[in-house]
């Protein structure tokens, strides 16, 4: 049986909204936080540790009545670049998208450098810029950081 059919057996299909599939196992809660869905207004279904042919194990998030915009979709790449994003309408997948690492990350990450001013004062926007492949440069302390070093 396919992954989607297994997950559908365990959870209701959503009529309209966004399904984020192939999330790195165990990362769904962190992803919900960086997408700003810690206290969602609409129903959210979270499946963790599902079997996956491609990943071994995966998480899935289904968000009812919400189509994520490009900026939010690209945040997914910080946590799970292999994730697929399905836009659903009338119970049918209308669009399949992939996340791409953003050029700038604003206000959703902390700098791991303990001597960076961003960890002492409320900076107006902490953002990491100057994307070089999978690395980012902290706007303040200028350290080059990998996505895995960012505190999301």
């Amino acid at each position, binding site marked *: 049986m396919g992954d989607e059919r297994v997950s559908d057996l365990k959870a209701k299909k959503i009529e309209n909204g966004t399904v984020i599939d192939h999330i790195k196992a165990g990362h769904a809660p962190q992803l919900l936080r960086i997408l700003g869905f810690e206290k969602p207004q609409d129903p959210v279904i979270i499946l963790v540790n599902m079997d996956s042919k491609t990943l071994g194990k995966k998480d899935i998030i289904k968000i009812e009545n919400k189509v994520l915009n490009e900026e939010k979709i690209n945040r997914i790449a910080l946590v799970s670049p292999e994730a697929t994003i399905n836009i659903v309408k009338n119970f049918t997948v209308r669009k399949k998208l992939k996340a791409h690492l953003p050029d700038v990350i604003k206000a959703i990450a902390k700098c791991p450098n303990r*001597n960076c001013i*961003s960890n002492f004062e*409320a900076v107006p926007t902490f953002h990491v810029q100057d994307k070089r492949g999978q690395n980012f*440069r902290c706007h303040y*302390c200028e350290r*080059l950081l990998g996505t895995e070093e960012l505190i999301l």
Partner: protein
Amino acid sequence: MGWKGRDIISIREFSKKDIDEVLKRSSEMDRRPKKSLVGKKLSAIFFEPSTRTRLSFETAMHNLGGEVIGFNESKGTSVEKGESLVDTVKIVERYSDCIVMRNPLEGSSRLAAETSSIPVINAGDGSNQHPTQTFLDLYCIKKNFGKISGLKIGLVGDLKYGRTAHSLALGLSHYVDSLRLISPQNLSLPSHISNEVSARTKIDERTDLKLDDLDVVYMTRIQKERFPDLEDYEKTKGVYVLTKERASKINGIIMHPLPRVDEISPEVDSLKQAKYFEQAACGIPVRMALLEMVMKG
């Protein structure tokens, strides 16, 4: 980009054309200093100790006909009461026309610049950047050789925590085809600097003190205050030391941002190669030029 109102925060933000302009204006100021900032005030807010940088900025401003206010340490200021950097800057900018700041936290000058409506000059932010030191280092090299391109230059000592080494490596990468980096293995240039330097310049990293063929030997202090681990500091200090005998074999010049501890023996001072005090004096025309450029254009 025009110079009036510009912040000087990181050497990364200056192109070769910008650096050449600073060196040209510094040379003009050296030959013909002028009182072009009469009536202007500089706030020198130093949260960390400084001798050369602070005094040279103060001297530069006085030479230009301006005045200086500020503090040399946070003791005795409202920072002791917990006042934030942002609030400090918001007050200071109302009293002056330009701010020069040294602070132990990396990125602090960037935050000050974003807060302030007047130009901010970074006099050192933690172990990140010290751009005006780089300008004066490059000016000293140009003064001695008439050029920077084509020279063989080596940076020696603490390249990991040394902000002057970070800024200088980035600045030099606009000019030289290769750069020799000599340091203990645990004090090598951090990757977030070396990656950028090596995109423009070939890097030759070594641990042995190969200096004789260099045109410029730039020594740096092993900085105790930047070591999170004192045991590491004790193991490393005194590793790269220039005695008179060793220094006399160097064909080029010896530079050092100072203060020195024991990495250059005082007997070296009398050698013709020793240029570190002349280097410090270069801070005056360079900082005069920068102050004029950001306050007047």
